[in-house]
């Protein structure tokens, strides 16, 4: 490894806190905002991938996709994951989580399940391009809540088309009994790469934060958390405490269907190694991308000089990658060269 690692140097030797494991790129929905390819690619070596991660003391994995339940071995994968890791989570669209599937999931000690809901029935189904997908997602949430043993959360991808439905969706999910909701911002990558009409402007983002802030002030459930990294400078001071910091590419990573280690599913920035062939530590040590992140060299001067950089970290690097330039307050500059590490 060239250069000197500074602030986050300890992360080279530290096993990841969390790895998202992509079981498939396929999905039975066609979400307009999807960051994935929706191609029928399935992980053929997923058992070995999980074992390799466990051997290196990864303790938390999220089974994701695509739609992870579309993997023909999903329940065997889930069983194996629960044998190997203390914390197993599932990210799903919920449409395949009928009574039988939910019962089978409950055979295992799972940390949490997240079922995405992107608006009211009309706006959700319009975004997923599949009629009835909202009803199935809500049904899955109700089935988990009825059993009450596996924490169930939901994720709402914020787009220009469902922004106006955010407050009502929070209310609807409250009436269902949901306790936790995360909000992520649409980033035009993957299938969503061409969906310019879904891009959320800075003003719209601030409006969404105000809606979330009002809800949190009410003390009502669900608890809402902005999961996506947001540059603090894009927000008024009073809303910055709601913004999150992204630690993907530092202590959290993504492994695709082939075992390639990446920064995150959104950016799909490769770290230049495959967990089936190389130890994670060696992948990180040999990755100029990882080194750039831990040395904060991806940040523009304005970010480096900012007093809030340790909390903000420049926003979403996937969004910055797409934009390709720093525009003075909306995600840090990501050098294009990093994408082809």
């Amino acid at each position, binding site marked *: 490894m060239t250069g000197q690692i500074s602030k986050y140097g300890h992360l080279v030797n530290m096993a990841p806190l969390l790895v998202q494991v992509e079981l498939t790129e396929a999905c039975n929905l066609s979400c307009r905002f999807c960051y994935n390819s929706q191609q029928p690619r399935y992980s053929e070596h997923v058992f070995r991938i999980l074992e390799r991660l466990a051997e290196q003391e990864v303790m*938390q994995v999220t089974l994701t996709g695509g739609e992870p339940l579309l993997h023909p071995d999903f329940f065997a994968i889930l069983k194996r994951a629960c044998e190997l890791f*203390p914390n197993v989570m599932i990210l799903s669209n919920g449409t395949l989580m009928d009574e039988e599937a939910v019962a089978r999931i409950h055979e295992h*000690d799972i*940390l949490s399940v997240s079922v995405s809901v992107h608006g009211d029935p009309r706006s959700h189904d319009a975004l997923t391009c599949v009629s009835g997908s909202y009803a199935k997602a809500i049904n899955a949430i109700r089935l988990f809540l009825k059993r009450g043993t596996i924490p169930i959360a939901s994720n709402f991808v914020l787009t220009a088309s469902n922004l106006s439905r955010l407050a009502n969706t929070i209310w609807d999910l409250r009436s269902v009994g949901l306790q936790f909701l995360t909000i992520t911002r649409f980033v035009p990558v993957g299938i969503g790469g061409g969906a310019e009409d879904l891009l959320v402007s800075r003003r719209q983002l601030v409006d969404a934060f105000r809606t979330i802030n009002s809800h949190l002030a009410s003390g009502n459930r669900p608890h809402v958390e902005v999961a996506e990294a947001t540059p603090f400078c894009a927000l008024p001071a009073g809303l910055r405490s709601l913004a999150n910091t992204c630690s993907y590419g530092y202590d959290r990573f993504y492994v695709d269907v082939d075992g390639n280690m990446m920064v995150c599913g959104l950016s799909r920035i490769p770290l230049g190694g495959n967990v089936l062939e190389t130890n994670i530590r060696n992948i990180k040590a040999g990755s100029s991308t990882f080194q750039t992140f831990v040395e904060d060299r991806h940040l523009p001067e304005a970010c480096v000089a900012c007093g809030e950089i340790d909390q903000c970290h420049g926003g979403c690097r996937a969004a910055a990658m797409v934009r390709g330039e720093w525009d003075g307050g909306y995600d840090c500059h990501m050098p294009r060269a990093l994408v082809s590490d």
Partner: protein
Amino acid sequence: MVPKVKEGVRLRREEFGGLLFTNRTPVLALNNDALAIWDLIDGNRTVLNIVDILARTGREPRALSALVQQFIEAGYQLDLLEIESSDPAAAGKQMNSR
């Protein structure tokens, strides 16, 4: 009073100490002092045994005893530890009910 690590609790050693993973709490970080106590919890040693062993490092026994007791109480409250005792009522008294 014998503390024992509950099933499903996993420790990962780190340069700064360790991280505890369970399905019941967020990830918990242990510094090296806490890790030294954790390492002695084996389901056989009593709290007094643990204090005695740690006291060999030269630390003041009374302060050490308070520290160990506090740590084990916290572990019990967080559902990371169970407490075995020949006198369950005594164990219950010492560990405030959750």
